[in-house]
């Protein structure tokens, strides 16, 4: 089952309201996305912790419903 880009963006913004989120559908199949997420919440965190915040925002969909999301995170 695939997810829409706007749903992914909405879930990330719900958890990280200040985030700027840029999502691309890499393969055009609604299943392989890349996301660039910039949020103040990432400041001072390791990349692992930054990505974990995004995965938490997706509430378990990552690795299940959402097969591939190449993540790039940073603080503004």
């Amino acid at each position, binding site marked *: 089952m695939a997810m829409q880009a706007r749903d992914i963006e909405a879930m990330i913004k719900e958890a990280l309201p200040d985030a700027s989120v840029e999502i691309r559908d890499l393969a055009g199949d609604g299943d392989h996305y890349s996301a660039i997420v910039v949020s103040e919440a990432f400041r001072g965190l390791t*990349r692992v912790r930054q*990505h974990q915040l995004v*995965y938490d925002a997706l509430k378990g969909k*990552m*690795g299940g419903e959402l097969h*591939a999301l*190449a993540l790039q995170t940073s603080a503004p």
Partner: protein
Amino acid sequence: MADIKSFIDNEVKTNDIVLFMKGTPDFPMCGFSGQVVQILGYLGVPFKGINVLDNPELRDGIKAYSNWPTLPQLYVKGEFVGGCDIVREMFQKQELQSHLKDAGIAVNEAAAE
């Protein structure tokens, strides 16, 4: 599940570099796992590849152990470094090379320059 946790614990603490992956270093079964194998190969560092496809319990267990939903997962000296995106980004920024050196692991110098 307790057994899987102690199995993982033991693997990451007794091997300098462990890659939990889909397939084996010689035959990766997933492009993301293959990319990390290539990076480690390029750096010339020995690592232990553990194929999670051999064991569904391990495949779920490593995700719980690391609180990380995807594979591959790279461990250096018992510490979770990241998945494919993070490892690739660190490699491109030379951070993986310095991370390994800081951990006391010799890196192929030509690759580290």
